[in-house]
């Protein structure tokens, strides 16, 4: 699998910008429409685009399945850990313990930015894992 030269060069050029846009969506989740899920899906599709154009084997080397599923578990464990952290710091579960900062800036949402990042990692890894599983399934029972 792997497609023509034209697609490969375009994808090779576009890939960093798509990931950058995904990161923008994640980091500005609490300022503009967007957030962990949308940004994660954008990054996931960037990886899928790479896989479609360069073929599964090469992408597998760059983003192997093992590391992606570890990233996914890491995303959720950080989310739960943040919840526990707010308990240790005297707030109730998932309560915000960081200073709110000035509205309009990235660092303004308190815990929200960290939540968005955790969700973004988990969704990006999850989407690409599903894609790998669907593509590599060879139909035996």
């Amino acid at each position: 699998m792997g497609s023509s030269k034209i697609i490969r060069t375009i994808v090779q050029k576009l890939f960093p910008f798509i990931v950058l846009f995904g990161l923008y969506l994640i980091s500005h989740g609490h300022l503009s429409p967007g957030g962990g899920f949308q940004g994660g899906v954008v990054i996931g599709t960037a990886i899928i685009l790479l896989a479609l154009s360069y073929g599964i084997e090469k992408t597998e080397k760059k983003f192997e399945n093992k590391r992606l599923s570890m990233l996914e578990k890491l995303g959720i464990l950080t989310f739960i850990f943040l919840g526990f952290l707010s308990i240790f710091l005297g707030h109730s579960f998932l309560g915000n313990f960081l200073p709110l900062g000035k509205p309009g800036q990235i660092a303004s949402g308190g815990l929200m930015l960290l939540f968005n990042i955790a969700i973004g990692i988990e969704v990006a890894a999850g989407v690409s894992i599903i894609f790998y599983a669907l593509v590599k399934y060879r139909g035996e029972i």
Partner: protein
Amino acid sequence: MNPINISLLVFMIGLYGVISKNNLIKKIMGLTIMNGSIVLFFISIGYREAGLAPILGKGTTGGIPTTIFVDPVPQALMLTAIVISISITALALALIVRIYAKYKTLDIQQLSKER
């Protein structure tokens, strides 16, 4: 025919699709249509006449904004409902791949006959 009635109608079309179609994938499509119509229903509940998207302007520093905002709560709920609906669809499609691999048919009638 405001969007609330339309969303209920689409919900019914999805329900009809789930009940009467024999093909497994069409049943899943019916389920997705139902979930989609629920998202439309919630959003049209929260709509306010000439309301803006609930993003406060860059400048407001927490003062009481005079502009009318659309109700943000259903939109927040629907983010969750959308993710749930794609999870159900993803799981169902993976299941259909396995069922097809074993029984080589997608017709629910034939499936229920085979042991």
